[in-house]
C-alpha cells in the first residue's frame, strides 16, 4: 500500500493561495486512498501552471508540450493499457491549444483521465484570456473585454458522447476527491473540469464568486440521461452545478483493439522468423 509519503514531490512554485494547492493535495489523497502505487501511474502534462503538478508529487511523468498531453497519453495507453494514465492540464492547454486532441480523445474513448485545472485565465503568461474566460472580461490584452463566447467543456463532452464528464471545485476538497475517484474508476475517457480560483490574475472568478454560485448536483439526477445532461451542462452563471454531469458505458478504445487483447504491446515479444514468411508474398 502506498502512503502520502510515497507521493511527496518537489516544492511547488505556485503563488500562495493558488487553487492548485488543494487540487494537488486532493490528487495525492485520492491516489493513496485508491491504493495506487506511484510507479503504476503515469501523469502526462503540457505547459502551464497546472502542468507542473507531476513535479510536485511522485509518479511516472511525461511533461510534454503545450496542448499535446492527450496524444502522448493515448500513445502510452495503447502501448501499455495496464498503466493508469492521467493527463493534467490547464484550460488554455486542454481547451485552447489542445482542442482537436480533446475532441479526438472523446471520440476514441481512450481510457485516459483528463483533469483540467480551469482558472479561466492564462497564469503562466501572466493574465491573458483563456477559452473559458467570461465574455466581456477585461484582461491584459483585451482592454475592451473578451469578445469570443466562453467555451463550455461540459456541453462539448455531452455533444461528443464523452464517456465521463464532471465538474469539481478546488475549494470543495472532499467532493473533488469523490469525483477524482469516480473518474479513475470509470472505464473510458473521463473529463474532470476543476474550477480553480487564480488569486493573481483573475479578479473576477474569485473564491467568493464561486462560493456564491456552486452547488452539488441533486441526488436524484441521472447522469446517464443525455438530454438531461445537456441541459445540466448549459447551466452556468448564477448557479454552477458540481458533480457528474454525464456518463455512459461505451466500450473503451483499448478494448476494441485486438492486437492488445492478450497483453500490452510493451509485453509482447517479436518473432523475426515471421518476416521470412512475409517475404514470400513478394514473389
Amino acid at each position, binding site marked *: 500500500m502506498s502512503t502520502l509519503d510515497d507521493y511527496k514531490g518537489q516544492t511547488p512554485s505556485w503563488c500562495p493561495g493558488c487553487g492548485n494547492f488543494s487540487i494537488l493535495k486532493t490528487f495525492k489523497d485520492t491516489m493513496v486512498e485508491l491504493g495506487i502505487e506511484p510507479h503504476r501511474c503515469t501523469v502526462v502534462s503540457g505547459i502551464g501552471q497546472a502542468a507542473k503538478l507531476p513535479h510536485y508529487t511522485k509518479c511516472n511523468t511525461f511533461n510534454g508540450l503545450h496542448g499535446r498531453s492527450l*496524444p502522448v497519453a493515448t500513445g*502510452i495507453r495503447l*502501448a501499455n493499457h495496464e498503466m493508469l494514465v492521467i493527463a493534467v492540464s490547464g484550460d488554455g492547454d486542454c481547451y485552447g491549444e489542445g482542442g482537436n486532441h480533446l475532441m479526438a480523445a472523446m471520440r476514441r474513448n481512450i481510457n485516459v483521465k483528463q483533469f483540467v485545472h480551469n482558472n479561466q485565465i492564462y497564469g503562466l503568461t501572466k493574465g491573458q484570456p483563456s477559452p473559458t474566460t467570461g465574455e466581456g472580461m477585461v484582461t491584459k490584452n483585451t482592454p475592451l473585454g473578451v469578445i469570443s463566447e466562453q467555451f463550455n467543456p461540459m456541453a462539448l463532452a455531452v455533444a461528443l458522447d464523452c464517456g465521463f464528464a464532471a465538474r469539481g471545485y478546488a475549494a470543495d476538497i472532499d467532493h473533488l476527491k469523490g469525483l477524482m475517484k469516480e473518474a479513475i474508476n470509470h472505464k473510458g475517457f473521463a473529463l474532470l473540469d476543476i474550477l480553480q480560483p487564480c488569486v493573481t490574475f483573475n479578479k473576477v472568478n474569485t473564491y467568493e464568486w464561486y462560493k456564491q454560485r456552486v452547488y452539488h448536483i441533486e441526488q436524484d439526477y441521472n447522469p446517464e440521461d443525455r438530454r438531461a445532461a445537456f441541459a445540466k451542462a448549459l447551466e452556468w452563471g448564477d448557479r454552477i452545478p458540481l458533480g457528474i454531469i454525464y456518463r455512459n458505458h461505451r466500450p473503451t478504445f483499448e478494448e476494441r483493439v485486438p492486437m492488445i487483447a492478450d497483453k500490452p504491446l510493451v509485453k509482447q515479444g517479436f518473432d523475426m522468423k515471421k518476416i521470412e514468411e512475409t517475404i514470400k508474398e513478394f514473389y
Partner: protein
Amino acid sequence: MDYSIKIGGEAGQGIQTIGDTLARVFARSGFHVFSHQDYESRIRGGHNFYQLRFSNNPISASQERVDILVALDRESITRHEQELMPDGRVLYDSTALKLKHEGALFLDIPFEKLALEQGGSKIMMNTVATGAVLGMLGMEVAPLLDIITTTFKKKGVEIIMANRSAALEGYEAAAKSCTKCPFNLSRDSSAKPKLLMGGAEAIALGAVASGCKFYSAYPMTPSTGIMNYLAAKEKEYGVVVEQAEDEIAAINMALGASFAGARAMTGTSGGGFALMTEGLSLAGMTETPVVIAMGQRPGPATGFPTRTEQGELQFVLSAGHGEFPRVIFAPGTPRQAFFLTNKAFDLAEKYQVPAFILFDTYLSDSQWTFDGLDTGKARYVDYRLRGEAFNRVVDYKRHAFSESGISLFGVPGDAKHTVVTDSDEHDEDGHIVEDALTRIKMVEKRFIKKLPLIKREIAPPFLYGDHAPRVVLVGWGSTYGVMKEAVDRMSSTTSIAMLHFSELFPFPMRERFDYVRLLSNAKLSICIEGNASGQFARLMRAETGHEFTAQIHKFDGRPFLVEEVVREVSAKCKV
C-alpha cells in the same frame, strides 16, 4: 534485351492493376524489373501512366524510350506516341477509344468486346489488355493465369475462370495480330523467380522487421503506403496502427508509445512534417526514440501532391527548435529502404534520438526486383531496461549523466522506480530546473557527447564504377538507380563513377574512405539532385568544404530518366 512498356489512361481505369500484374509476371519469370508511376492528384479522369521496364540484366531506373504503349485513352497516344521506338507498338482498343488508327505500329485488340464475351463485364478489359501484352511479347501465359487465380481467390471460381479466359483471349488475339512484332525475349531458362518490392512496402517491412509495435500517422502522399501496409499486417505482427487527428498528434502519440516502452514510428510528407517539428524537438529534449518516415514531394505548400522532388533535405536537417542530435538516412533502393529503416530503429533506440527515413514519391512508388532479401541481417537489440533488470537498479534517474551521454531507459511500470521526463530543461531525475550548470551538463549529455558516437555508426558513401574516376556523379536517396545506369552507359568511353550517399547525417566521416580526396582528384564532380537549389551540395560544402564543379537540378516534379542524365552529364563533360 531491354523493353519498356508504358500503360496510359485516366485515373480509375486500372492502369496500376495492369502494370503491377505485368511486373509480377516478369519478376516470376526471372526477369529484372523496374517500374514507376506518374499520376495526378485526383480519383477519376486526368492523365496517368505506369512505366515498366524489364530485362535480362539488372536495371534500376526508367528510360525515355518506350517499346509498347498500352493506350487506355486517346490522350495516351497523343502524349506518348513520340516516345515510341521506331519498331515499337501501340496496343489499344479502337471501340473503347472510338478512334481507329491506321499503320503498322498500331495493334487494335477489342479489349471491351472480349471482356464482355468472357466475363460479361467491362471490368475485365484490364485482364484482356494484360494478356495481350504477353501475347505481343510471345511470353508464356501460365504465370499470368497463376497470378489471376491467387488474386481472385476470395471472389470465387466463377470470377477466376472468367478472368483466366479473358486473359487467354487477349493473349491469343495479340499473338495472332502481332506476327510482325520485333520483340524477342531471350529468356534465361535457368533464371529463378525474383522478389518484387516497392519503396513504401520496403520501409514498412523494415519497420516490422525491427520490432516496430506502434505506428501513428495522418494520411499524406507519399507516406500513406507505409501506413496501409502496416495496417494490413497489424494483426499478424501485433502492431497498433492509429490514424491520428493531425500530424501533431501523430508524432506525440508515437512519443507516448515509445516512452511507455514500445518501438514507435510515424510517417508523413513535408506539409505534415511542418506540423511535427514541435514534436521532433520534444523527442530531442526528452531523449525519446522515434523513427520518422519523411516522404518528399514538390512544395512549397501543397505543391504537386502526387509527384516527386528531393526538396526537404535542408528542412529535415534543421527542423525543430533548439539543438539536439538526429539521424537522417536516404535510401536509394527498396533494399536500402528495408535495411536503413532497420538501422534507423536501432540507432534511435540505442542513442535515444529521432531518426529519419528521408524518401520521396519516386522511391515510394517504384518497384524493383531482387534475388532475395537477407532479412537475417536485420539487427534487433532491446536497449530498454525491463522487469527485474530495472528493479535491480539502485537510485534510478531517467536522465542520469554518463560518459556516453546515454542514460538507462526503464520501462515505466516494470519496476518500483518512476520514470520522469520533461520538455523543460530538467535535472537527472527529469524534473524542471533553472540553473545554468545543470543546463550545460544536460546539453553536453544529450547532444555534444552523443554526436561523435553516432557519427561512428554512419557508413561512408557508396562508390560505383571507376575507382580513380575523372568524372564523379554524386547524389543521395532516390537518384541511386538512374546515376548507376548512367555510369554503366558512359563507362566504356569515360572514366566515370557514382558516389551515392544513403546515410546522410551525421555526415559520413572520411577515416574509412576519403571520398573528399576522390572528389577533388576528379576533373569533374557533378552533384545531381531533384531540387532547384542544390541542397546536398550545400551540405557537402558545409561539412567538407568541397565545392562541386557542376550541378544538375531537376524540379519539374518528375523523376530523372536514364537518357536525360547521360545527356546532361555528357554536356558537362564537353564544357
